[in-house]
């Protein structure tokens, strides 16, 4: 049993609130709630988009109207009223350079510890910050452009590099892929566009920071990363949102394309507001479509993700291994606490010869949460020599949570190997006892063991993120012991 001191600590931390849950007071230009062709057209007009972009959106909208929200997941989704969401919200004062950015927003990002401006230079990370529907600041743009690397907000890319956007947009996630992806294709507001030219190694980590601020809005951003032949890029993504009593929808599309010999490393730390831990009220619905295409031979794509937030998480970052000898990797830690629910995993689709994939998934469920791993490994007829290794472990803290593992393994050629293993258990009592015998309190000991459980994944995260991830793990775990 925990000591009195520990109990106090737990009680204190239980009372602690979601630290990113503040609201920033900025004047916003927000569309009235609702979605129809007129809204889509207006959105496109405001962004001064060319006609093909508008047509793309309208086509997506028309297909979306015909579609039905899927309901096969293990999540309890409150009905979403798509007409009560506002599909565009932007800070009114929006200027060219970071110095002109509204001080309130600046303060907001400072509070979250996002390096912008001066601090970005120190940290050596290029940041694109997306506030509600628009990108407010992108750092290091010029330095990167000198090397031929395009790193800018999506709206700028549509203006400045329309031929690139037109060529690659929707090639990995088709316009009518699924309900939420189609909605995103119709109303996506901003996001990040990144192009790495041939034989270029991106000299710094690229990073995007998403924040939902306005009430009753949804965030629909779009990320498109193209790594041309022989290039390398490491990309980070972080997210937060204020605490609100209603559920807010976040439906993003992320498309990655790796050409011959290219490598993309995509890391996410997701810390959306998880809802009130005691009542389960509020929180973000995170229904994201993330997909990567290893288009050329010898390409490699790595997804690393650490999920602590959002009331509901429903996403499957996938890799389509089309090029011969291409490699797809997925490293994930998904932590659910309170009333959170997650139905997440990955899809590895082997099409090319000698393709390899590795899946390491760690699910931690605490409180009254539900954590589901759902994954697909598919080996096509032509994918001879394909190899897959999957390990998905679930850790359960407390007796009110649940963990599910639903892997699908579909092998269509004999010249391939698939290995899958999964375990579900609680923290080993012997290990806990050992730590306690060395004078660690129950909570510290649990934190230590959980951090050991996640280590395999955290090692894949870039340095700065790994530190943040460990801290976030501690904060998110708080109150789950005892």
């Amino acid at each position, binding site marked *: 049993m925990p000591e009195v001191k520990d109990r106090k600590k737990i009680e204190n931390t239980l009372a602690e609130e979601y630290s990113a849950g503040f609201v920033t007071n900025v004047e916003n230009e927000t569309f009235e709630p609702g979605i129809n062709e007129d809204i889509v057209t207006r959105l496109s007009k405001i962004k001064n988009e060319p006609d093909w972009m508008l047509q793309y959106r309208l086509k997506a909208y028309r297909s979306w109207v015909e579609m039905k929200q899927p309901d096969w997941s293990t999540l309890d989704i409150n009905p979403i009223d798509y007409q009560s969401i506002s599909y565009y919200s932007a800070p009114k004062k929006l200027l060219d350079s970071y110095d002109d950015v509204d001080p309130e927003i600046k303060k907001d990002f400072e509070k979250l510890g996002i390096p912008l401006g001066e601090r970005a230079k120190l940290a050596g990370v290029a940041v694109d910050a997306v506030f509600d529907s628009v990108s407010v600041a992108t750092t290091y743009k010029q330095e990167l452009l000198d090397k031929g690397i395009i790193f800018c907000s999506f709206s700028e890319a549509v203006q400045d590099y329309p031929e690139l956007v037109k060529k690659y947009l929707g090639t990995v996630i088709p316009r009518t892929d699924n309900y939420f992806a189609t909605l995103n294709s119709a109303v996506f507001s901003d996001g990040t566009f990144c192009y790495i030219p041939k034989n270029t190694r991106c000299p710094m980590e690229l990073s995007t920071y998403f924040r939902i601020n306005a009430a009753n809005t949804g965030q629909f951003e779009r990320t498109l990363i193209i790594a041309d032949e022989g290039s390398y890029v490491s990309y980070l993504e972080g997210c937060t949102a204020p605490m609100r009593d209603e559920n807010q929808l976040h439906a993003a599309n992320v498309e990655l394309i790796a050409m011959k010999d290219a490598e993309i490393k995509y890391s996410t730390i997701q810390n959306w507001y998880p809802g009130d831990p005691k009542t389960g009220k509020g929180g973000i619905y995170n229904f994201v479509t993330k997909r990567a295409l290893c288009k050329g031979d010898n390409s490699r794509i790595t997804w690393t993700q650490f999920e602590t937030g959002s009331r509901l998480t429903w996403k499957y970052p996938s890799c389509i291994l089309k090029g011969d000898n291409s490699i797809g990797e997925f490293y994930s830690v998904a932590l659910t606490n309170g009333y959170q629910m997650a139905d997440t995993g990955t899809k590895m689709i082997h099409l090319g010869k000698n393709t390899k994939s590795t899946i390491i998934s760690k699910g931690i469920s605490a409180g009254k949460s539900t954590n589901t791993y759902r994954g697909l490994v598919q*080996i096509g007829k032509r994918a001879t020599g394909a190899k897959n290794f999957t390990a998905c472990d*679930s850790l*359960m*803290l*407390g*007796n*009110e*949570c*649940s*963990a*599910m*593992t*639903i*892997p*699908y*393994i*579909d*092998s*269509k*050629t*004999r*010249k*391939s*190997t*698939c*290995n*899958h*293993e*999964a*375990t*579900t*258990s*609680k923290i080993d009592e012997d290990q806990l006892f050992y730590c306690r015998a060395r004078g660690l309190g129950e909570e510290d000991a649990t934190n230590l063991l959980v951090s050991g459980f996640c280590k395999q994944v955290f090692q894949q995260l870039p340095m700065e993120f790994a530190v943040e991830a460990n801290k976030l793990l501690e904060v998110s775990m708080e109150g789950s012991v005892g």
Partner: protein
Amino acid sequence: MEIIDVYKETINLKENTELNYNLRPNSFAKLFFHDRVGVNLKVNISLDENASCEIYGLFHNEGKDPNVITDVIHKGKKSKCDQDFRFVNKNCDSSFAGKITIPKDVTGCESHMLNKNLLLDDESTAFSKPELDIKNDDTICSHGATTGDLDAEQVFYLRSRGIPEPEAINILVDAFYQDIKIKMESE
């Protein structure tokens, strides 16, 4: 079927079958399934307190598609279950879907599931969906699944010892499910 004490059964599957076993407290059951004609098999097992169950399946098929579903529910505390299903496919598509359910408040359970698929030619495919649904932290649970071809090096080794290829393949296929066969025959 209700199982009260100790029960052992080896079933040579001939047609599509659905079987229900209800293991009473402290009972033990050992079930073997053997199939060479490509059947649809569904096995439902419910375990009461302290009950223990071992299920082994051997599906060696040529040209006929086997389709297996298992559904194991741990209804009583400290119940145990071991599942091991092996498929050898020649010119056929196999499908295995296993599910282990441990409800809330049923503590101290242990459940394992293993599914191995061996594909012998290019016309064969294997689908496997081993599912865990755990609503209790005091549980030990695992599943594993593998799919693949015979090891080319092993075939080569046997051939270099003068064994013709078809025979070498037969030896290795036998080895693939040897452990289950021994358990089956020792009964």
